[in-house]
């Protein structure tokens, strides 16, 4: 799959640096005791920035739902249609969700509710950059 390459900014750079080291680290607000993803400059709940740190998570989740892209305006992905786009909830913080293409699962066969595990996929043409991805357990 020809995925686009995330371009880190000042706030997100630690996240993507960790992904390149094959670690999934999320923002954690010590005041709210809450994890946060995507990365933001401030806590979603309290709005503070000085309470945010980084915390590595285990990488276990479940498929909430899976849709299938048949026509896309993301030009780099046109060659991939049809492809799954699943919404993954993180087991240790179910209010956190991620997108996934469910590599290894054919389009339209995304299993609702299935357990998934984290892995890191090297991006084509990126010079060694990775992205966090999820695959159905047992596949």
């Amino acid at each position: 799959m020809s995925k686009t390459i995330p371009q880190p900014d000042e706030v997100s750079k630690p996240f993507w640096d960790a992904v390149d080291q094959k670690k999934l680290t999320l923002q954690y607000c010590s005041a709210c005791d809450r994890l946060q993803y995507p990365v933001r400059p401030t806590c979603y709940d309290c709005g503070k920035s000085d309470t945010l740190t980084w915390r590595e998570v285990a990488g276990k989740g479940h498929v909430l739902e899976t849709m299938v892209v048949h026509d896309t305006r993301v030009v780099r992905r046109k060659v991939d249609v049809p492809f799954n786009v699943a919404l993954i909830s993180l087991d240790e913080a179910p209010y956190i969700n991620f997108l996934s293409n469910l590599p290894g699962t054919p389009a339209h066969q995304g299993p609702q509710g299935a357990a998934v595990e984290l892995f890191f996929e090297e991006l084509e043409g990126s010079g060694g950059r990775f992205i966090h991805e999820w695959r159905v357990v047992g596949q």
Partner: protein
Amino acid sequence: MTTQAGWQRDRDGLGVWEHRGKVAIAGYGYSPLDRRWDGVSMDRTLGAFQVIAMQKAIADAGMTPDEIDGLMVCPEPAGDTWAQADRGLNRPFFAAPYDTEDGLSYTSAKWLIDEMARQGTPLTNLKYIDDKAPYIGPEMGKAAQAVGDGLAKNVLMTYNMGNVEGRYHLEEGIYSAGGRQWSAPWGWMTSAMMQHAFVFLQYCTKYGGSRDDLAPFVVNQRRNGLLTPWSFYTQHEPYQIAAEDYLDARPVAWPVTILDSDRPVQHAAAFLFTSAERARDAKQKPVYVMSHAQINKPNRSTMATLQDHEDVTDLLVKILYDGAGVTANDLDVFNPYDGFSVFTQTYLEAFKWHGVGRGEAFDFYKGDIRVEGPHPFNSSGGNLGNGRTRTAMYTDCIEQLRGIAGARQVQVKAETAACGMVTPTGNGHIFLSTVPS
């Protein structure tokens, strides 16, 4: 110029709206509707259409342009922020007033004021100009609030949707920056479509059913659109679709297909807000504003969930109903937004219109939802039936309450109406009535 702050009704506990029944819509107008601007016809530009709508709204109220002392314009270019960036910035311009993009893919307040003067309807007494209004959902409430707060006596509010040639929103390049770094790599398109596909799938998992259960609703939306003389479909595809057409429609982001999506068009509408007292002396039967409400809830994580959508629409409806001092049983005409078919049921169930509760929309859609029937749902035909006007639901509410909706006129009581726009986590709604109390 006077400014407006803190106008939103966006939280619980506000109670009855302080201007309930004291503000009215005295006039409305709309332009012709085209699929796209053809790049040639200067009498059919976005700006020209908007001036037509504004002139009609003033005339409809029986007012004169010099009575208008407030103007509210939505700054979104052509209603869609992508229009300028993605389409035609390098195209040649024309003689004034079309010597810039202004008037072609968006319209500024200044352009409209100048053009209204050029067209013989000068707005010479404006003391309140708001060109920072959001999209029409909140914009309607903001206009009503402006009159209630005394910022102007007669506020002319206008909204347009433009569509020029070409495909838009193409996301080229190999890098994804900003907010797109969290979504584009997985093929996520910048659109509400995919977000709502996820929530719809969660809805089906929670309550049962599938996309097939939307067929009666989508088919009826087209039917209502075909009852509207100026709709895109009446003009260009004047035939009814069947459930089979819907079920076989080309998938875009499954379960969302091409027939779950509204078709972009070029169109404008305008609404004239005034005091209830002034409206009683106006040319038309007044439509009173009883309440307005707004929701703007950023996603906690990558995507909002069904629970998020249900929670915020419950709050929206509580604010709106409390503001009007009504319950669900008091709502006669209901035009919830349908920019994608897959989220309209969220509004239907939150408003509890005709007793429809959470998880009951699919059964409701199977019943008689025609305008002639006992449950005339979305009598406007919405965006799906008319094209992406984003205003058809508002003009229909006014027409139903005035009793001038023609073939779409509902046969049930039509003394109150509610409508809004856009998606469950970001929208504005308004509650209207034929009587001020």
